[in-house]
């Protein structure tokens, strides 16, 4: 039977192959992100003012994609944690370590832009309600994961501890998502990802989705670049240990 020449997802398990793909994919994803964000923000800033909120709703084009990415990146990290513990995929812990600071940055952007948006619409920057508090907890979990990575010197030892913490912390992801349905909150209910379809007007929805796609490409570029850095850091560590052993 002839061998198929098409690439399978499993082929990415080879770090050298990943580095070759990343060299091409990083600039492509960065360029796609720049084009989509420029177009999305242009469309977003040329939509008519919202009836109740005036123009301040335009914070949505950065706040909502940041929230989606903060949750999405954590879900990706939980999948990578399974990859580390169950399938022992050689790039799973590299991806998990690289994704944590990026997820933390998007969670921080979500929290701060939400607080800034909250002041003119709710009359307060912060309220200890279900959505805001669970999002803050998600940010703190990200910080905990980053701290745990730094607490271990041996990356493979750290990977197992971090994978367990990541899976335990995953319980917060559905809490963030459904907090607006479970508790009475200041934060509005979901208006895009709903079983009965989006309730947002298409004039606002389409630039929002373009911005979300743009931020997703930015995340993809940053993740691959950070994974490449981590693979290089591990090579540096191996060579340093090797040199030290040879010196003795």
């Amino acid at each position, binding site marked *: 039977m002839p061998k198929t020449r098409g690439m399978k997802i499993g082929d990415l398990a080879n770090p050298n192959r990943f580095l070759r793909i990343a060299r091409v994919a990083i600039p492509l994803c960065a360029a796609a992100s720049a084009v989509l964000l420029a177009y999305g923000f242009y469309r977003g800033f040329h939509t008519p003012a919202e009836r109740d909120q*005036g*123009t*301040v709703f*335009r*914070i949505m084009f*950065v*706040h909502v994609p*940041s929230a989606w990415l903060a949750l999405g990146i954590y879900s990706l990290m939980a999948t990578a944690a399974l990859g580390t513990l169950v399938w022992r995929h050689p790039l799973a812990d590299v991806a998990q370590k690289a994704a944590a*600071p*990026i997820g933390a*940055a998007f969670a*921080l*952007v979500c929290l*701060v*832009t939400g607080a*800034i*948006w909250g*002041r*003119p619409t709710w009359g307060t920057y912060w309220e200890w309600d279900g959505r805001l508090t669970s999002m803050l907890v998600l940010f703190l979990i990200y910080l905990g994961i980053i701290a745990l990575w730094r607490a271990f010197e041996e990356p493979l030892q750290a990977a197992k501890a971090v994978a367990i913490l990541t899976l335990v912390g995953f319980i917060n992801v559905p809490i963030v998502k459904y907090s607006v349905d479970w508790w009475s909150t200041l934060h509005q209910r979901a208006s895009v990802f709903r079983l009965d379809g989006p309730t947002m007007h298409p004039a606002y929805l389409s630039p929002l989705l373009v911005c979300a796609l743009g931020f997703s490409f*930015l995340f993809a570029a*940053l993740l691959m*670049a*950070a994974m*490449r*850095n981590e693979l*290089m*850091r591990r*090579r*540096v560590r191996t*060579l*340093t240990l090797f*040199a030290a052993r*040879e010196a003795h």
Partner: protein
Amino acid sequence: MAALHSTFIAAAYGFAGIVLCALVVWIVLDYRAQRKMLAELEARRAEKK
């Protein structure tokens, strides 16, 4: 009201821009540092051989 809203919008986009640019700069600087260290270590290994 519109001017006040513009201040909030500028603050939100400004903060997001600073955080995401800082992330990009950190990753680029880390890449340069790792590449430099790797080149030095590999040159040292090549000298020994």
